[in-house]
């Protein structure tokens, strides 16, 4: 399931840079191999996923994270938010126009649903694309340019100052994050083909 894979990847990604996190993954993989030998691969996989989630939840408050990781996480959140907010409103209005039977007050619900779906999908795509630093950097810059252009067009109509300021901040964050992404070496999860 997509949701499972997302949480699983998130757990592995957040544990890997931490020396203790790496040890947790190593121990889990070691136990998984033992369980696979006794109970079979399916049972071992099921155990591994459950234990990984439990361990991640238990260890998360003790995780050490760098300023770079915090910056990347903030940028992911910002990109997902902008993608959602920029695309959800037109979508909600289009849906309500097509389906005339939907009462006006339901537009807000459609809007919120669309924000959740588009934001979640964007965050998922960005996290998965993170396997390759260069691809992630390109996606970050691409997202920055796309949303920046969208804002630029909108700024020609109204709220000029605010939108330009937002655009500058957004592109600056995109550039910094892309540069950080370029320096980030792909790291082994210690899990071999489990990560795919």
């Amino acid at each position: 399931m997509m949701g499972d894979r997302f949480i699983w990847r998130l757990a592995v990604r957040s544990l890997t840079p931490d020396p203790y996190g790496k040890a947790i993954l190593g121990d889990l993989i070691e136990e998984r191999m033992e369980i696979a030998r006794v109970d079979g691969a399916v049972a071992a996989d099921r155990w591994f996923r459950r234990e990984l989630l439990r361990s991640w939840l238990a260890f998360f408050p003790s995780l050490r994270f760098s300023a770079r990781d915090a910056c990347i996480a903030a940028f992911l959140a910002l990109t997902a938010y902008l993608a959602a907010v920029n695309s959800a409103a037109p979508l909600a209005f289009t849906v309500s126009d097509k389906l005339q039977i939907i009462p006006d007050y339901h537009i807000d619900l459609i809007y919120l649903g669309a924000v959740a779906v588009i934001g979640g999908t964007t965050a998922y795509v960005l996290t998965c694309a993170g396997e390759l630093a260069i691809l992630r950097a390109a996606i970050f810059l691409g997202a920055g340019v796309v949303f920046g252009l969208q804002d630029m067009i909108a700024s020609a109509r109204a709220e000029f100052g605010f939108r330009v300021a937002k655009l500058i901040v957004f592109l600056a964050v995109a550039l910094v994050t892309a540069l950080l992404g370029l320096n980030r070496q792909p790291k082994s999860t210690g899990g071999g083909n489990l990560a795919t």
Partner: protein
Amino acid sequence: MVYSLTYMPTFAVGELELVVLFVTLRLADAAYGAEIRRSVRDHTGREYSVGAIYASLRRLEDKGFVRSFESEPLPVRGGRSRRYFVLTTPGRSALRKAVLLKRRFWKDLTLEWQPR
């Protein structure tokens, strides 16, 4: 620079931390995460997650009660290195103090429970 979400360190030893200290001392050279977890399960009958054990170990290391080091990769195909833990002198001292405190409590309780 690294950041942590953990609270301010204290030098008191919690229940799980005490068990982990004890098990680490008993395991000596074989004290690494998975083995500590198995041993904690055997001694307490409770199934802790690997993450919970490592969270305790990190707190203990922050307090200076244990130190850790990474081993060479295991000499098997795809062998991984393990993080081993060793009790420090303050760790042994903290364990001794905690055990003495518990013994004193039990001694008092035993006296109180004696039939008159």
